């Protein structure tokens, strides 16, 4: 059942049983076949990750795929970060700033570099912890907003009604990333995996799991 919880909420104990797939649908082989293998912790798609985990996972639940937004979505903040970092040497050319003493200029530059580093760090955290997870029981979307707010949305595989992918624009077409919209038969009627790599393949896996589990 989909739900949105706060940081302190944990998964209910009476969680649904894992879906047993028919022999024809060997999920492990299928996922590897469709997605291939990934090992880098910075990868946007982790297949059967060994280290990756999340606090609401049940003991008998297996993570099949963990997804993050495509790496190219980091380009705008990386570019902004580079511009921010090369700014301080040019401070002296700004009117009024040149009247500051050397001590003030030093503190200002130090402050600027710290803010720039914090900006990049925050953006990286936003990307790194914006995760979408497919397990053998459910589909999960974990988001962090406003520094200290967490949003946890989930839906059981058996409640998934429809899965569609959406790739729009030149950037998404060139780098093959987009959204996956998961319609569910419960309170939260839709879960969206935003800007994930290879959305068509994610849809294929989800449809295979839903069809396989429903039979």
């Amino acid at each position, binding site marked *: 059942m989909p739900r949105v919880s706060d940081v302190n909420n944990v998964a209910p104990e009476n969680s649904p049983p894992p879906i047993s797939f028919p022999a024809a649908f060997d999920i492990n082989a299928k996922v590897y076949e469709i997605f291939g293998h990934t090992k880098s912790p*910075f990868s946007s798609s982790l297949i059967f990750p060994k280290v990756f985990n999340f606090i609401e996972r049940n003991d008998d639940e297996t993570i099949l795929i963990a997804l993050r937004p495509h790496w190219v979505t980091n380009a705008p903040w990386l570019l902004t970060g580079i511009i921010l970092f090369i700014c301080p040497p040019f401070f002296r050319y700004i009117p009024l700033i040149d009247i500051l003493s050397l001590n003030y200029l030093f503190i200002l530059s*130090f402050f600027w570099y710290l803010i720039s580093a*914090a900006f990049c760090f925050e953006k990286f955290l936003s990307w790194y912890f914006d995760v979408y997870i497919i397990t053998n029981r459910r589909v999960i979307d974990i988001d962090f907003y406003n520094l200290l707010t967490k949003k946890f949305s989930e839906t059981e595989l058996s409640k998934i009604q429809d899965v569609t992918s959406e790739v729009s624009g030149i950037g998404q077409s060139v780098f093959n990333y987009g959204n996956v919209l998961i319609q569910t038969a419960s309170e939260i009627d839709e879960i969206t995996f935003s800007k994930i790599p290879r959305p068509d393949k994610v849809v294929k896996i989800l449809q295979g799991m839903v069809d396989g589990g429903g039979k």
Partner: protein
Amino acid sequence: MLGSLHTYLALAQKLSFTLGSLIYFVFAVIVVKQTTMMTKNVNDKFNPVLIVLAYLHFALTILLVFLTLTLL
């Protein structure tokens, strides 16, 4: 007259820098809290490095406050 105005401006300048660094200190504390919270909720290989970076940022912010109070 001009001398005292200059003194006031210098004082205002120092106060604004000090206040700015103190506000930034609060932000650095929040960044540490945020990183800790995120790494507790989602575990991955790179988490220890992120925690170290958050604390490094916090340490540099303490240095900033110290330098603001001593150098200016």
